């Protein structure tokens, strides 16, 4: 059964990376923008992540060994 995972990015890996990195220096966040607005924006950014199957996502990560 195909699992219904939202793919948050349809862009290629490289493009997305560029987008993120282009802003990697801390921006002078608009001082007038309330911190709670910024948090709202962040929650909007991750909304699609939360719509995936959380249990499936978490349980998919089983690693053995290491160190």
């Amino acid at each position, binding site marked *: *059964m*195909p*699992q*219904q*995972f939202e*793919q*948050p*990015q349809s862009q*290629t*890996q*490289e493009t997305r*990376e560029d*987008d*993120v*990195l*282009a*802003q*990697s*220096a*801390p*921006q*002078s*966040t608009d001082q007038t923008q309330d911190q*709670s607005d*910024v*948090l*709202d*924006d*962040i*929650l909007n*950014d*991750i909304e*699609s*992540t*939360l719509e*995936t199957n*959380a*249990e*499936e*996502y*978490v*349980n*998919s*990560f*089983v*690693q*053995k*060994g*290491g*160190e």
Partner: protein
Amino acid sequence: MPQLRDSGTRTLHATEPVPSAEMDGFCRIFGVETEYGVAVTGAEKPVDAGQVAMTMFQPIVSRSRSTNTYLTNGSRLYLDVGSHPEYATAEARAPHEALAQDLAGERVMRGLAGKAQAKLRETYGEHATIHVFKNNVDSAGHAFGCHENYLVRRFVPLEAVEHQLLPFLITRQLYTGAGRITPDGFQITQRADFLDEAVSSATTRSRPMVNTRDEPHADPDSFRRLHVIIGDSNRSQWATWMKLAVTHLVLCVIEEAFRRGEPSGFEDWAFIDPASANRAVSRFLDAPDAALPLVSGETVSALALQRRYFHAVALFVADHREAMDAAFAVNTSMVKHATDIAADVAADSPTTVILGEWDRALQALEAHDYETLADRVDWAAKRRVFEALRRRRPDVTSMQLEQLELDYHDVANGRLYDSLVSRGQLHQLMTRDEVERAVREAPQDTRAALRGRFVEAALASGVQFSAHWTHLTVTAPERREAILLDPFSAEATAEFEHLMALLGR
């Protein structure tokens, strides 16, 4: 971990003593080894994570005929036991440089995952997604590591590390912990519940906080390698930089004390039970003032003990600032375009900047003002987002929070960390250009520069070669080797020049 020729330095030294010129000052070599976890979601049929890790390493195998290689930036990239991709940074002289190299590792992993994911989707469907977690615990409770390496002067005995440094390492997590949702609630560290021994020579059988395996990869009469296991993998650039920087300062105090045969002042701060102190620190948010018993009979809170270390180090720095700054040999071109903290490092005394950041972090903790730390400290950044999410969605499940917490550590496809960065909510100490350069280039002021040149030339000429921290070898058509025992030296030796001549350089 695969061990290659690790005993080499000891036997080598028996015939070829190399007195180190770096014994007197505060110079140090820093390195970070990070194990990554791999998972796949969205696949149309079951897929084995180990197989995916192998797919990620396919380009490495076709290049090096092995899942273990060194890159042109001097770092080591390999597939560890249990299909952990692992990245060990090249030797760095400053925490800032080690941070650049560690971020280069994230970038390398992201690149390998991107290629492997494209391949995976041919078989497992267009939604198959590879997650590469820079964290320390999986969903089944397997723990894995982020190990810091510090070259420490041999005259510091291991007992001093255990008694004088370990209490610092345990309480340091107040601002370097990555945070994790556990069955016990939100803890500020990832690993505390998985570490049971204070100091030991093993890492896989038991879980020590400091490993004593003696592989200095340098003149063994002059140096030992301190292998710190207790730390979390950090996404916060500030946290990676801070843990290396502050630990270095504390080590400087301990080294100088033994050099002069005087007390360091840390003698009475050992915990009676380091493992339980460690677990208590991890539960800092539940009991910030928890009293931790010391061997001396006193009890002290984790934060108060950090404050004591801070005061002692600040006093020490006041007397040794110039020598300590000189030891960093800050490569100013590295920080030219960097952001505020890094710019301070260039303009001001780097040691002063570290003390300032340390003080500021402790002040915020003392004021219970965790919001202030959310732009620097991983656990505080996560906690702030989780609380905002709970306010917006009171019905959010703990599983969703766990997912989000993992997503923060996913260097391949994660959303949360990138969102925080792009919205200016997490301090960045490195520009994109600096990280890109660290992917390509080794630090120029350590042995890594020579290793990087060798790997680049060997790849270009197509010869068979192998490398190790202290050895560079062309294996065919003609075997020739150069041994580089001094990690502080980027100067080409005659042996190295011969090797390069064989490669047409």
